[in-house]
């Protein structure tokens, strides 16, 4: 039987009833923003392969799964152990199925100048700066799921690091999903403002419990002001039937720096679409990531880095490991606009295919509209090196362990880009746990 294509309207069904319960009720500017988002989503419709950004990723899961809005009861389920990744965090914010769980969170003891609040609370408190930024960092963007998030945003955090404040320890945001009777959907919206000369580290961890389906439609806006710096990390360890779509918009100011690393280790469909604007001279970014997929999982990293001013620089390294029948997509576009002379942009995408059924589509793109720039890109896909495997095995290392060693070595090159040591170790642990057999190698990554 042919699958039924579903429409934007169908996806919105069921959400209208709960509209009044969404956070920020009674704020006219927000009602307006939501209405615009809704309208845009309906106009754009669900993305199809005709759209460049969705060329290699199909929205099949939506055809066989009906999602209902997450309720308060979904968020109240009991979770024995919060899967925190960091031992030392400046603050921890925990959401379960989109619901902020204050008793599991800890935001006490933050230094002056650092404010972290769940979106709903921040909106209720009426912090004026939010209205100036929410939806404005991204601007009008023809991204259906971003628009849908704008219409339905119901969780997520608002972070502000005040001018000149520097926060050394990371802020950890944990989103636990799953264990609901029917598949749910929720829409975390994050807004991070790093003011002039301020710096911070934020780790967002999405983790699934159980094997049920759910849909997290996240959106994030980041504004790093002049001289500011943000390290922004994500770990996605979603359940096998889960969908995680994340759309991010980042603006980087004069001499400001943005470092991102996204690790995806699971999910039926996990897609990250990141757009970075290096908006003023001296702005720089590192946009890195790694993914490990198996079974029928699908991972999509679609990125756009725009150099809009002179002396801007970008580095991008993505590495992935694909087993079984899993698929991955890497689409990376670097645009050097007119007037952005003396800029440099370097991009590298590499995939390791562990089985004959695994596939990757890679599309690196450079668009350069000015002279005097340094840009490069490269993409490669290959298998484990037979000579390396034999060498390891000839020294007594069993094949499974030898394969693990080589996979780890391959990914380490990407994970080493994470400049926060605690986060880097947490990421490497995730990688090790993903590997098929337990290894004895963990300490190697500790000492670095």
């Amino acid at each position, binding site marked *: 039987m042919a699958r039924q294509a579903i429409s934007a309207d169908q996806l919105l069904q069921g959400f209208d009833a709960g509209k009044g319960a969404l956070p920020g009720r009674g704020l006219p500017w927000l009602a307006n923003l939501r209405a615009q988002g809704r309208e845009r989503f309906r106009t754009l419709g669900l993305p199809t392969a005709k759209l460049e950004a969705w060329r290699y990723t199909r929205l099949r899961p939506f055809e066989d799964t009906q999602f209902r809005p997450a309720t308060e009861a979904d968020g109240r389920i009991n979770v024995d152990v919060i899967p925190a990744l960091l031992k030392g965090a400046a603050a921890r914010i925990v959401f379960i199925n989109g619901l902020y769980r204050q008793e599991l969170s800890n935001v006490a003891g933050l230094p002056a100048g650092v404010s972290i609040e769940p979106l709903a609370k921040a909106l209720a408190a009426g912090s004026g700066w939010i209205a100036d930024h929410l939806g404005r960092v991204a601007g009008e963007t023809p991204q259906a799921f971003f628009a849908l998030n704008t219409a339905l945003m119901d969780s997520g955090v608002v972070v502000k690091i005040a001018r000149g404040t520097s926060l050394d320890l990371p802020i950890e945001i944990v989103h636990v999903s799953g264990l609901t009777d029917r598949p749910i959907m929720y829409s975390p919206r994050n807004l991070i403002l790093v003011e002039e000369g301020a710096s911070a580290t934020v780790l967002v961890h999405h983790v699934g419990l159980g094997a049920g389906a759910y849909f997290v439609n996240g959106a994030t806006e980041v504004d790093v002001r002049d001289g500011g710096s943000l390290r922004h990390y994500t770990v996605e360890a979603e359940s096998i039937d889960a969908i995680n779509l994340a759309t991010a918009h980042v603006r980087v100011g004069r001499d400001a720096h943005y470092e991102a690393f996204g690790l995806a280790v699971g999910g039926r469909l996990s897609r990250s679409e990141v757009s970075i604007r290096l908006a003023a001279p001296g702005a720089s970014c590192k946009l890195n990531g790694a993914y490990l997929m198996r079974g029928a999982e699908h991972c999509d990293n679609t990125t756009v880095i725009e150099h809009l001013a002179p002396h801007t620089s970008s580095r991008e390294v993505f590495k992935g490991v694909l087993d079984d029948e899993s698929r991955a997509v890497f689409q990376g576009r670097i645009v050097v606009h007119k007037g952005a002379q003396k800029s440099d942009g370097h991009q590298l995408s590499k995939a390791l295919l562990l089985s004959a059924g695994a596939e990757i589509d890679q599309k690196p793109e450079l668009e350069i509209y000015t002279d005097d720039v340094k840009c490069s890109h490269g993409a490669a896909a290959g298998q484990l090196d037979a000579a390396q495997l034999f060498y390891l*095995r000839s020294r*007594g290392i*069993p094949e499974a362990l030898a394969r693990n060693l080589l996979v780890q*070595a391959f990914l380490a090159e990407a994970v080493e880009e994470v400049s926060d040591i605690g986060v880097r170790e947490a990421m490497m642990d995730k990688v090790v746990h993903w590997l098929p057999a337990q290894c004895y190698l963990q300490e*190697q990554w500790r000492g670095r």
Partner: protein
Amino acid sequence: MGPMLDIKNLHVTVGEKEILKGLDLALPAGEVHAIMGPNGSGKSTLSYVIAGREGYEITKGQILFRGEDLAPMQPEERAAKGVFLAFQYPVEIPGVTNTTFLKEALNAIRRSRGESELDAMQFVKLLRRQTKELGIPDDMLKRSVNAGFSGGEKKRNEILQMAVLQPLLAVLDETDSGLDIDALKIVAAGVNRLRSPERSTLVITHYQRLLSYIEPDRVHVLAHGRIQRSGGKELAAELERTGYAEFKAVAAE
């Protein structure tokens, strides 16, 4: 007891091509034998087939190691039983440090023998002793396996692995090529330290030079897939003078 390594009428095909064509070789425990021969005569093929490399098919004959047929064994099983190959071209493995590699290898072998694994402290102690004797700087241990190593460093690293794993049978495939005289002496000393009544070494070389530091009990000439001649250590010196022309002609069939 029979020889440590007993190769009988060995025929090996690589791809479609038969490289070894009825090779016989007996290496008793406690002895060092040298295999010499012109380029392309199948020396590395022999070393790979002993170590168990994929794609090297034994079509006839057998390789017995301490009486056991090696053919059905995985490379790691052979290593666990005490077979070691020092590669002619050691493989670079970026992202895996030398220390991790050595520790994983040693502990894997210990596990497969039912011995307890060494903890980090015990291992470092053992490693220090070996690196000191071989004049290997600590920095070489922290670097990725062979990545960016000079030719000499790679060869010394092979000997370090051998020293750590303490094999019963070591096959050295042109470990001397590309070494200066100092490095050559270090390598030879490493091999000689391992000499004992229960161990054997097969030294594959193109030149006699190494054999003045590692004195072989026997020398075999391999050409065109078979041992053409065997003799005492004086055969190596003779070959150095006459070259391999004789054997090239012999096998020109």
